């Protein structure tokens, strides 16, 4: 997708974050344009997860501002983030294993009839639609998520994000612990998101997965942004060198 000129969809400016005495983010600037897929890479402890958790409303920045679609915003809870159209797919915490697919997709946003009674028909139908939009073929929306494979589970989480008209989908290590086939499934889901014009932030350790999917790469190390390169200006090997160098640099 071509980057549109003008305002980025999301702009984080001079973000600082402390956890007790740990200085997790040291003045990070980060933006994502509409329809763009950005790979956020870096070694452990670099601050990638923390940065996107601030965008998702899970944490709050101690200093700095966030602009969404040009407006300054305060994201003080996951609800705020979702209201803006930011959806996150976490690695471990995305789904409740014993709940059905439908109940997972609509967790917290269940369609209701009178007095809060869940509208099961709507919930099931919409779930199947959401899965179909992503190309995910599953037998029934009542299956407990624990019976799905790793790739399918990520698919459900991504389908959830897609269904709720996300403008920005953040994927935090979505390919960890997946088989080669499942990784390809997940990357295909992400491509579907791209086809819909949704911006994506893709966090990963695995440069090759990221390289496949992203247009731009932001490298982080120890709480700072170390590099910001477009895919056409670099190669996986160069990127990997960048990451290693940043890990040792000051």
């Amino acid at each position: 997708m071509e980057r549109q000129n003008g305002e980025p969809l999301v702009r984080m400016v001079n973000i600082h974050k402390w956890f007790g005495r740990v200085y997790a983010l040291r003045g990070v600037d980060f933006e994502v344009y509409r329809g763009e897929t950005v790979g956020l890479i870096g070694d452990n402890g670099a601050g990638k997860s923390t940065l996107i958790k601030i965008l998702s409303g899970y944490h709050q920045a101690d200093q700095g501002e966030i602009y969404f679609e040009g407006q300054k915003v305060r994201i003080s809870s996951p609800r705020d983030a979702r209201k803006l159209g930011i959806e996150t797919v976490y690695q471990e915490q995305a789904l409740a294993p014993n709940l059905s697919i439908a109940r997972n997709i609509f967790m917290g946003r269940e369609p209701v009839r009178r007095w809060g009674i869940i509208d099961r028909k709507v919930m099931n139908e919409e779930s199947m639609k959401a899965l179909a939009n992503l190309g995910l073929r599953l037998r029934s929306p009542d299956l407990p998520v624990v019976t799905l494979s790793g790739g399918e589970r990520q698919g459900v989480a991504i389908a959830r994000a897609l269904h709720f008209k996300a403008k920005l989908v953040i994927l935090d290590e979505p390919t960890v612990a997946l088989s080669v086939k499942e990784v390809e499934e997940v990357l295909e889901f992400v491509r579907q998101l791209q086809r819909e014009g949704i911006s994506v932030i893709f966090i990963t350790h695995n440069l090759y997965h990221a390289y496949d999917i992203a247009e731009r790469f932001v490298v982080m190390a120890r709480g700072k942004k170390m590099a910001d390169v477009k895919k056409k200006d670099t190669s996986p090997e160069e990127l990997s060198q960048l990451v290693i160098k940043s890990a040792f640099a000051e």
Partner: protein
Amino acid sequence: MNDGRMSLGRKLLLSRSSSVLIVLVVLVLGFAILSPEHRFVDPDNLKVLLSLGSEFSIIALGVGLLMVCGEFDLSVGSILVFCSFVFLRLFEAQVPLFFSALTTILVGAALGIINGLITVRAQIPSFVTTLGTMMMWRGLALLFSGGEQKGCDVSTVPSRYFLPFFTGRIGGVFPAQAFWFIVFAVFLGILLHYHRFGNWIYATGDNRDAARAMGINTDLVKTVCFMIVGVLCGFVACAQIARTACFTSRAGEGWELKAVAASVVGGTSLRGGVGSMVGIFIGALTISVIENGLVVMRIPYFWTYVVFGLVIIFSVLSSMYIEKKQREAHR
């Protein structure tokens, strides 16, 4: 309750509850056949079983609900006795029965909320919180009441509604307590399985972080569940006093573990996120039937412990076995 096509989820639910139901049916038949003169199925005994057993069972419903959302309440017996004490005092102060009952239930709600707030605010495991409040509430109740049994004969106060409400017989036969047990079971069942709040309860118990990430206020969900337990304790406190016409400081002793047992027997997982109101209902009935059956068969009360122990272990094992089979069926 049926929407025509039998969904897979419904099948799963039924299969776990059905094993519990089988156990219950076997027990009922066993007691019916083996009790001297089939006393188990004697109408008088059934009335006793349903009225007494329902007191415990109502509370077990709440404890089971709380377990689905991932927490435990070991203080139910103490909340019960504290509420009984509150009712006693109000009665002695000649407060109209209706208000006494209402206040008692509100006090129960308050104690439940306290359990909830301590657990979620201080982020300590509910196991510990309710261990502490268990000692606290019973201790306070004993302290203020002087630790004895006290007569509290409600029938001395003219009230057309109080006694029948809690201890009456519908159609002259069916005990009111059992009626309330069913009412609460249906209400909580609808809440858990059909209401969006029920989905929040499941989500909170199954994966708290996912629930929070999806914007569910898990602290609120847990506190409300604790409150429900408290309300049920308050209700049963009134019912118990209505039935026995006295306050006893030993009310509810041991009920916390029995309630956990009833839930576990009913297929509720100790980790949270798994359980059904049908299962809890049957589990509570099972525990009550066991107690009553052993009494009817003149078996010394001590055997109940042996039986409970075996029942718990057996049901958890079979529950785990079913779970394993279900998981394999879907691969």
